[in-house]
């Protein structure tokens, strides 16, 4: 209570101390497309300033007087205006792209100077335009793979679009596309991510210091915003690549006399056609393997102060072999958002969101054809108020309401087969999370951002919950050092809507920035996060068959405490910037599998999972070169991530699957002239932990491996170099060629090393030989690709 009281007192103080203050507010837009621009720096006088929010809105309260206002945004021409404040004032502005400045790298950890001033830390942003200039491994611009080049972010495995942040697992990332949760961000077995770079406007990754406005995952928030569409004119883009092609159209809705739409729309689609080559290979003539996705965004200005947005995503992967097998999976989401400028200081937004992830597996073995289907649906409602109290002081408050429906699986017969239909129980949950977040400028040097999130997660019926002997599904036997399953001794039935289990948790978040001088700042942060959903996957890669399970009677929520400090510096008038961050993360009740876990088609997942603790710590360095012919960055991470779980590894700490000691990325972009751009990136990472056998023995005619402990070995180090060249169109032209070579020196990086018995093929039968071998599996050798883009 005291905490809230002091906030309220603080606000009162802040709002009443002024003598004669007025508010300057408005919107910032791109002059060509009319889209609102987020993150524009607005600097007023010597030491006041703010930035535009997600919808281009800004508000700053100033004392009466005359000011110089500077609007600046990377890649755009800076606008400088003299203004006289003697009353509340509305000032909208349009920014023009600066052709000369376009070469600037935009994948910095936020723009250099803002990085110094903001209280934000552990944040990385990427613009879609920059993503498109980076060399690509498979010839396809990929948002997640671009993020993996930043410090503290590593890849689940080569070519994979799963990512690990600061030693966390892939399921600890909250992935939001226009506020809708995306549960599986991968296409084509994980080689591509589901985000179409053409439809994406901004990407922001919070690796730590997560503001109270976000919650639900331990390691990171990947916040992706879709483009809104051109409000001034209709146009389109086409991209033709070897693996997929894409198209985009956008244009204004209801143009007014000035030629500007009251709204706009954008529609983008992609489809891969790797499977079109399949018929060329005899074994694959019956194989289907493709993905497609569609992004839609519509926005409309109801009046000067109220706007409506509708955005949607729908994507599917299809993988099938005629008469044998079929698999379809994908996400779908829809967001309807209303933003309203209630006053020049108070901004309101509310979103209603639907999100669905589902997969289907058809088994078409003659006589027993069946379909396995599983999905997760959630409905969110997210209202939020932003109150721009005064320069440097902003209060955000709101709540996230979520209703979850998990369908772990149902089996239905196909083609009138004799398969008995079966349905695992659905699981339901309700989450309510009110929050308050306050940016508080204490002095010109010291700014704070602090807040709290209260998460209330409730498992509700209808469900029948098993009761186990000893009150728990598993009991640890210390003599044998293993978990033993307990018998189900009864069940408890809950009616629809009945509370089964409720969790209430307080999540404090705080960060501070001390501005040492104009080019240097020091920051520190503390964060507590709770995660109520667990991804129960018995592999380290993202698979389409992932099963998300909510916390409940037997599965506790995971939580983490993260501390981070950072040093931020700009050099040579923002040409370079440099940062060092160190973090320590303490994780509790993280899930791992009992030895020999059997997870697929397992209704009582609690009998296969144990919970333990983890710790992760590391140092991240990043040096950016922001301007000149050659731009780019260098990042290095030194980190450790470990777990300790009863019954695993003799109860001692062991490296987590995501532990990567060294990680180095070097990215260079070179502009030769108006027509040619070149890009290169080099990545080095030490090997991820694996468990190698400690012995072998024979059983039932087969050679079997024996193991001690977990993750006691390392794969060989990983490194690769990718190159690209872009041929831009001549003056007046509109076609662009992009050539790229992934993994230039054809390094066969180990995806896995596995141990097995050698077999001899005798009469088409694999007969074991008793001899053993270690085999390395690597995914991608050298991959050349070419893409053609066309604007109309």
């Amino acid at each position: 209570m005291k905490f809230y009281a002091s906030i309220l007192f603080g606000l009162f103080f802040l709002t009443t101390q002024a003598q004669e203050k007025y508010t300057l507010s408005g919107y910032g837009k791109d002059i060509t497309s009319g889209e609102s621009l987020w993150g524009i720096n607005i600097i007023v006088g010597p030491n006041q300033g703010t930035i535009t929010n997600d919808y281009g809105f800004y508000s700053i309260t100033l004392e009466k007087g005359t000011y110089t206002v500077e609007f600046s945004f990377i890649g755009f021409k800076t606008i400088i205006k003299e203004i006289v404040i003697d009353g509340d004032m509305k000032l909208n502005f349009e920014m023009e792209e600066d052709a000369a400045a376009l070469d600037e790298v935009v994948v910095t950890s936020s723009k250099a100077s803002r990085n110094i001033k903001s209280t934000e830390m552990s944040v990385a942003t990427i613009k879609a335009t920059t993503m498109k200039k980076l060399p690509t491994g498979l010839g396809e611009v990929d948002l997640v793979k671009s993020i993996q080049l930043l410090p503290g972010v590593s890849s689940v495995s080569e070519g994979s679009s799963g990512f690990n942040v600061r030693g966390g697992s892939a399921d600890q990332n909250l992935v939001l596309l226009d506020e809708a949760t995306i549960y599986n961000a991968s296409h084509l077995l994980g080689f591509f991510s589901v985000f179409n770079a053409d439809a994406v406007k901004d990407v922001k990754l919070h690796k730590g210091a997560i503001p109270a406005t976000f919650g639900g995952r331990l390691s990171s928030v990947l916040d992706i915003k879709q483009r809104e569409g051109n409000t001034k004119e209709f146009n389109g883009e086409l991209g033709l690549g070897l693996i997929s092609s894409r198209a985009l159209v956008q244009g204004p809705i209801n143009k007014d006399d000035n030629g500007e739409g009251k709204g706009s729309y954008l529609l983008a689609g992609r489809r891969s056609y790797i499977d079109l080559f399949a018929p060329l290979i005899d074994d694959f003539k019956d194989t289907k393997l493709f993905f497609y996705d569609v992004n839609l965004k519509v926005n409309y200005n109801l009046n000067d102060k109220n706007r409506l947005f509708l955005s949607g995503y729908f994507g599917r992967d299809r993988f099938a072999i005629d008469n044998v097998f079929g698999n379809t999976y994908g996400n779908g989401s829809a967001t309807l958002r209303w933003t309203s400028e209630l006053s020049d200081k108070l901004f309101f937004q509310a979103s209603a969101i639907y999100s669905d992830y589902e997969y289907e597996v058809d088994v078409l073995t003659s006589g027993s054809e069946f379909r396995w289907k599983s999905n997760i649906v959630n409905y969110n409602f997210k209202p939020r108020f932003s109150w721009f109290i005064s320069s440097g002081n902003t209060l955000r408050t709101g709540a996230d309401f979520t209703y979850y429906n998990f369908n772990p699986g149902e089996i239905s017969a196909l083609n009138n087969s004799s398969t008995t239909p079966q349905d695992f129980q659905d699981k339901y949950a309700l989450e309510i999370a009110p929050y308050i977040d306050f940016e508080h400028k204490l002095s010109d040097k010291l700014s704070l951002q602090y807040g709290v999130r209260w998460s209330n997660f409730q498992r509700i019926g209808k469900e029948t919950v098993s009761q186990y002997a000893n009150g728990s599904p598993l009991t640890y036997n210390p003599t044998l050092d293993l978990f033993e399953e307990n018998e189900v001794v009864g069940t408890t039935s809950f009616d629809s809507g009945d509370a089964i289990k409720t969790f209430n948790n307080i999540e404090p978040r705080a960060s501070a920035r001390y501005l040492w001088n104009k080019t240097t700042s020091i920051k520190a942060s503390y964060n507590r996060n709770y995660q109520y959903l667990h991804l129960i996957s018995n592999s380290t890669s993202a698979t389409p068959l992932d099963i998300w399970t909510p916390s409940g009677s037997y599965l506790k929520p995971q939580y983490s405490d993260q501390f981070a400090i950072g040093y931020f510096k700009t050099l040579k008038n923002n040409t370079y910037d440099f940062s060092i961050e160190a973090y320590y993360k303490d994780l509790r009740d993280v899930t791992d599998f009992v030895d020999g876990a059997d997870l697929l088609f397992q209704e009582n997942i609690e009998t296969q999972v144990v919970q333990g603790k983890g710790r992760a710590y590391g140092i991240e360095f990043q040096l950016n070169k922001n301007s000149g012919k050659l731009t780019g960055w260098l990042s290095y991470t030194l980190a450790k991530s470990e777990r300790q779980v009863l019954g695993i590894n003799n109860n001692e700490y062991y490296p987590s699957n995501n532990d990567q000691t060294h990680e180095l990325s070097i990215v260079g972009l070179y502009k030769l002239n108006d027509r040619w751009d070149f890009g290169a990136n080099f990545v080095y990472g030490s090997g991820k932990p694996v468990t190698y056998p400690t012995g072998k023995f024979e059983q039932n005619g087969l050679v079997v491996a024996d193991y001690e402990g977990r993750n006691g070995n390392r794969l060989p180090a990983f490194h690769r170099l990718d190159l690209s060249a872009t041929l831009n169109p001549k003056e007046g032209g509109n076609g662009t060629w992009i050539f790229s070579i992934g993994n230039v020196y054809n390094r066969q990086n180990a995806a896995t090393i596995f141990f097995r018995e050698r077999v001899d093929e005798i009469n088409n039968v694999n007969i074991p030989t008793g001899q053993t071998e270690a085999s390395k599996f690597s995914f991608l050798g050298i991959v050349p690709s070419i893409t053609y883009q066309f604007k109309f």
Partner: protein
Amino acid sequence: MKTIITTIKRVIRISIIVLFFSCETDVSDDINLATFPAKLVINGGIERNTVSPLTAQQLRLTTTNNFLSNEPNPIVADADVSVTDGTNIWSYDHQGDGFYTNTALVPELGKTYTITILWNGETYQGSDTLNEVAGFDNFFAEFEEETIFSPGGYFLKFDSTDPVNIENYYYNRLFKNGEFVISPDPGNAQNLITSDEFFDGQQRVNVDVNGEISFEIGETATGQQLGISKEYFDYLFELFTQTGNTGISFGGNPPPATIRSNVINTTTPSNRAVGFFYAADVIENSIIITQ
């Protein structure tokens, strides 16, 4: 239900290989596995075969050795081995090459057999219960065309009726011209062992003894169905999952871990044994493949 996982794993594997230019390299020479203290290995159990009764009960004891060593596992010749059903005790004699036998033990249904091994000054003990197996209603071979997953040829099949209201676990073994054959296939965990959870009391028809292994005309095909305990079923499930590992985690491979034996070192529990001492009821039949 679980056959689908097998299919998925294989489909994904071949697709990745072809579509993503991936490759597999033998790196046995580049990897040095640390050497760990050898563990006792139990390979065998009690079998009640009513069709061709066994002249002796037999099991083999060895120790583990380095996974990449191509030397055979060292045998254990100096152990004291005995089995009891709670009333009688049968002691086993070493016949050479790690094989221990007893000719007096006649297995009986419903009995729980406990093995005691004294070796290196430590005592190991484990038990398993002998459960009756259902017989074959039909036993035949059928020709199948080659598919993308399996070779063509004659496959040995049977029909069998599961007893009602009894929890049953089955394990199929296949012999070619009298020799036991098995392949380290990802499908074994789903195809060679079965629980009656989804077909209690019903007849199963056209069950493959081992759908990976085909016969040619003139060969002698022998198929066995074993009635096993839940504990042995769980053990075999892990064993077949591990030996069928394709190295690709997309289809889901559990983290590698030792497969827990039912034979416990009672002197020093942390000094584990590996392998399983089982008790099984066996039904079998043989045919010579003709056109």
